[in-house]
């Protein structure tokens, strides 16, 4: 499969300042490397503070990294300038979580969706018809063109956000918790729509979410993040069938399933991690998960396990599996 995005040793630290002095750093993303293939949906899962949102923004160059690189279609994203940068911005788009602050309340829907086209100075014969076609693609109607955002529900607004993202004919989209703020029935509509769009337009997605069931439904491959590092990365089905990393196992066992018998069985086997998530300002030495891991050994406490390949396309960062 062709690689569209290659992330290499990406690092992002946010300085913690007391007055003018930097007293520490938030290790938001701490050395992440992986690939996203063309046409797939790559899921990125983790709990709050794991760095997945920061990673999404880094890939789109909405923030500058502390070190490391991201290659989009072979080109280094952080070195792009001028026309090349604009081209990247046309090809890579993002959909945010909050549908309520994603739309400028003072602009009409037509202007919101058409704005990217104007920014890139693309010549379109009939702007109105073009925007209407985008609206129809996301399930809205022509009469919604000249209305204001406040007249729409959360689900509709998210559709508008997606329509806007499609305006420049992108090939890659970062979906940052696109349905977390929506109701269950609306969520299903949007997720199906995203799947259809991927098929029709050949899009590649980076799907970021904390909801494992949603990520599993949407992604072909996925990565689990913990405290700024990827701990497991593989084909979604394989991970769900048999998660290897202890954190992944705990994460999965913690998800409640809407099936009473299954739930009972899960409860018996449930592994609940001890304690709280440590602060990303002072991550634990060695393997970051060791304070909460039931299998922690001395090696885990002192040496950090590398993200190593244990099977074809399957990588885990854990001393239980690393060879050597």
């Amino acid at each position, binding site marked *: 499969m062709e690689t569209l995005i290659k992330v290499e040793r990406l690092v992002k630290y946010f300085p913690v300042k007391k007055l003018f002095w930097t007293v520490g750093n938030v290790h938001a993303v701490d050395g992440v490397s992986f690939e996203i293939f063309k046409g797939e949906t790559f899921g990125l899962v983790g709990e709050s503070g794991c760095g997945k949102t920061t990673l999404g923004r880094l890939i789109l160059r*909405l923030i500058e990294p502390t070190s490391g690189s991201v290659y989009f279609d072979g080109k280094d994203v952080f070195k792009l300038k001028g026309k090349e940068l*604009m081209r990247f*911005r046309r090809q890579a788009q*993002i959909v945010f979580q909050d549908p309520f602050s994603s739309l*400028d309340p003072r602009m009409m829907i037509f202007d919101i969706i058409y704005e*990217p086209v104007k*920014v890139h100075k693309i010549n379109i014969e009939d702007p109105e018809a073009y925007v209407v076609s985008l609206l129809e693609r996301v399930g809205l109607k022509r009469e919604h063109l000249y209305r204001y955002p406040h007249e729409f529900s959360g689900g509709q607004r998210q559709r508008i956000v997606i329509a*806007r993202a499609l305006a*420049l004919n992108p090939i890659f989209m970062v979906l940052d918790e696109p349905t977390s703020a929506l109701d269950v029935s609306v969520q299903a509509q949007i997720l199906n729509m995203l799947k259809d769009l991927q098929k029709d337009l050949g899009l590649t997605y980076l799907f970021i979410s904390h909801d494992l069931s949603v990520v599993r439904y949407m992604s072909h491959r996925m990565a689990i993040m913990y405290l700024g590092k990827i701990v497991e990365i593989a084909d979604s089905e394989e991970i769900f069938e048999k998660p290897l990393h202890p954190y992944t196992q705990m994460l999965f066992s913690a998800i409640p399933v809407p099936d009473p018998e299954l739930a009972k069985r899960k409860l018996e086997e449930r592994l609940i991690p001890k304690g709280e998530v440590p602060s990303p300002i002072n991550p634990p030495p060695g393997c970051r998960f060791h304070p909460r891991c039931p299998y922690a050994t001395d090696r885990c406490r002192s040496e950090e396990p590398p993200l190593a390949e244990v099977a074809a396309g399957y990588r885990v960062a854990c001393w239980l599996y690393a060879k050597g």
Partner: protein
Amino acid sequence: MLRAIKERYKRWRFRNAAKIEEYKLMFYAFRRSPLSVAGSVMVGVFIILGVFGPWILSGIQGTIMFLHSHGLVHAVPSFNAFDWSSEVLEPPSWRHWFGTDDYGRDIFARSMLGIQVSLIYSLVVLVAGIPIGIVLGLIAGYYGGAVDEIISRITDMFLAFPALVLAMAISASLGAGLKSAMIALIAVWWPGYVRLIRGQVLSVKENLYVEAARAVGMGDLSIIIKHILPNVISPLIIYATLDVAGVVLTGANLSFLGLGAQPPTPELGRIVFDGLDYLPEKWWYSLIPGFILFLFALGFNLLGDGLRDVLDPRFRRRLEFEMRGERGE
């Protein structure tokens, strides 16, 4: 041909329906408060008087002279604003509606012209001061960091002084006169806007549509002008309206202290100052122009308050239902 025009009109209607609804809502909101309407009427009157002052005066004079020549009116009022006459310190009468001052000048005419001066004061100060405040506020709020620190500290320095004291100091050092008073007022007024705009920018900046604009490839300048500025402007309009009263009163204070408008320029504050010596017997000299100043400030204040409600989108949303109810939808 006619059909083409009708087509274009229909399309225009379709495209702007939502905007028209919003404006209708704003008018409805405004209409609801009698004080706001009163305020806007007063402001309207003052603006007309200010812009067309001299013509109105001669118009009134012409009309009355016309009526007089037909014997309908027994005497003609005299509107001598600048010529000294022998009718010194006369109380209000048909000949001099607001009485005369110590040089025999008609106070009514001088007051009308004084309104013009007050309007010019406020316009100049706000037109010069507000843009400075907006630009600095936008830059400070959007970029943050060192730039923000520098701008904010300078702003703080200016704001540390009470407005009148600072204005006095500046205009005194520049020499008394209308021009130096205006410069002083501009210097006193721009910092408030920097604070206001900067605060608004800080909160608007956090909205995701700003980040979305960046993701699309918009440069900082475009984002500031197209996304941030329209969303921070509404408090500014209210603030500016209320400020008109403030500027005028401070300018009047300056004249009152002898630092603003110099004789023979009629400025309401100056007239009040000049009339102080003659209180309380010759009360019309100070009190009537003072009252007009009061009405001027009051009108703008009421208008500003009314606008504050109208421009608040949440308030408009509530009214949407009331308005629709009244229309029977």
